[in-house]
């Protein structure tokens, strides 16, 4: 038996993450060469990272879901719902329903409310998918509409605009040693997600469930319970993303997240995670988040009409899925 591990170079070239990472590097180099004065600057990097941090948190959760061969279309709406609940709780606890001057205690309660609200939607999704055996696409399409509707019902369709100043200054705009706090939080979530997916039993079982759910079940893995935990987890992260969005925009942005779900899915798939389940990395998702972000930023700076960005992304996305298909087919024997 050959006990040698495959050499690093060979493993690297075999990984789709490597190639998509190369695309990101090439993009960065290209834009830097085109506008050396404007693109490779600290300010551009900071805004790029801040603008991507909310999507990154969503995409980390989405990575787990897609590895189980599932999908979650509801993340953007759950984000809005959780933000609304968090904001309403903070307003409700503040004098005169104006949360602008609220203290740390109220902010933390608002965070808790947002996390609980997000997890609750995730739990509902998970129960319907794992217990009622409904297709994830339909279940989360339902909660996509329902969570947004619930958010609008809660606010009568008017954005909540009083967000505690300390939340906006602390998380939304705050930075330590040039590192924006939004970015630090997203990075922490990403590291934890990567650790959970790639080194723990939970992560291993996430892959197993997505690779062959029946085999996992026969191997004694509680598949239903695992799926419920995964969907609750992505709901929790959507709740956190909702709170981050609240801190950054200073309003609940009810109408602004209708394509978050597709952006998150695109990022995950770009990063080499297979829509058929069983394959994926958090690192790839990070790259998948930043390719559209860099394209958008780069197009603006270089002066290309921004409407080219979705065209370019779609091309790369389709190519990534094609690559995955070819890889799978070549493996089938």
């Amino acid at each position: 038996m050959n006990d040698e591990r495959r050499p690093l170079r060979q493993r690297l070239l075999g990984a789709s993450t490597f190639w998509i990472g190369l695309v990101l590097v090439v993009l960065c180099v290209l834009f830097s060469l085109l506008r050396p004065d404007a693109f490779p600057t600290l300010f551009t990097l900071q805004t790029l990272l801040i603008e991507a941090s909310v999507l990154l948190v969503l995409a980390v959760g989405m990575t787990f879901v897609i590895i189980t061969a599932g999908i979650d279309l509801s993340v953007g709406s759950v984000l809005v719902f959780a933000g609304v609940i968090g904001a309403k709780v903070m307003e409700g606890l503040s004098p005169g329903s104006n949360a602008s001057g609220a203290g740390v205690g109220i902010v933390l309660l608002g965070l808790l409310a947002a996390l609980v609200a997000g997890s609750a939607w995730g739990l509902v999704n998970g129960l319907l998918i794992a217990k009622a055996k409904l297709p994830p696409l339909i279940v989360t399409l339902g909660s996509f509409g329902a969570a947004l509707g619930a958010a609008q019902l809660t606010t009568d369709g008017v954005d909540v605009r009083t967000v505690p100043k300390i939340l906006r200054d602390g998380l939304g705009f705050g930075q330590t040693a040039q590192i924006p706090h939004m970015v630090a939080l997203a990075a922490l979530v990403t590291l934890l997600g990567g650790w959970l997916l790639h080194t723990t039993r939970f992560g291993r079982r996430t892959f197993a469930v997505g690779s062959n759910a029946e085999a996992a079940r026969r191997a004694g893995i509680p598949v239903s319970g695992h799926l419920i935990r995964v969907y609750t987890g992505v709901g929790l992260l959507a709740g956190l993303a909702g709170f981050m969005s609240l801190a950054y925009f200073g309003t609940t942005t009810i109408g602004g997240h209708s394509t978050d779900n597709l952006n998150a899915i695109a990022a995950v798939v770009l990063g080499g995670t297979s829509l058929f389940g069983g394959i994926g990395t958090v690192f790839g998702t990070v790259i998948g988040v930043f390719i559209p972000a860099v394209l958008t930023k780069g197009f603006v700076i270089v002066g290309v009409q921004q409407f080219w960005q979705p065209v370019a992304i779609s091309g790369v996305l389709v190519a990534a899925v094609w690559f995955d298909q070819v890889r799978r087919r070549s493996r089938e024997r």
Partner: protein
Amino acid sequence: MSGSVAEPLLRARELRKSYGSVQALRGASFDIAAGEVVALIGDNGAGKSTLVKCLSGVERPDSGEILIDGRPVVLDSPTAARQLGIETAYQDLAVAPDLDPAANLFLGRELRRPGLLGALGMLDKATMRTQAAEHFARLGVTLQSLDVPIGSLSGGQRQSVAVARSVVWASRVVFLDEPTAALGVVQRERVLDVIRAVRDDGVAVVLISHNMPEVLAVADRIEVLRMGARVARFAAAEVTLEQLVGAMTGALTQEDDR
């Protein structure tokens, strides 16, 4: 002509199982003692796979009784069966194609690191890999690499891993559903050697196979299923191919077992 030498380790009595209007098992019975290889044979649709699923906790029979060491047990999940020392290599393999061989061997019983990291759920990948390599070497499973997804291996290698997984963890009974179907000549002989070795360790081996020479070569006893019920039992040393075929096709009905 029943070759049972001891109190059966595992006994199924009068199992019935229907899928809609299809009766897969119509009062099937089965016995096996520790340290015995029993071949379960029958034509396609005789109910072999359904019987195995019922005895390994994947399906629950509609009625009937399963006894281990003479005590009735309820196998309501694969986990329940595994906790009783019953393992199965399924005909459809039931491996996770995207995971590597070691991960598949330890599927559902992953080793965790000692101490705090283990309590946090961290896997001990190195130990699992080492142990997997040892088990594969001991069982004569040759793989080019332990680091590739099992889906990229040949059908025979995948089957070898599935068989190894069931054999490694079985402490009392192991079901092997067509364990040699995808194998070449050399691998097939290795699997038969593994079956004998496992039997000598005192584990009961149930072999489901269509390959009559193979059945006669390795089994101690043979039980024949037809139309969802046991129709005959033979000691392998005393039976002829004609008798087996006769029992499978219905030309010979030896028992209405009760």
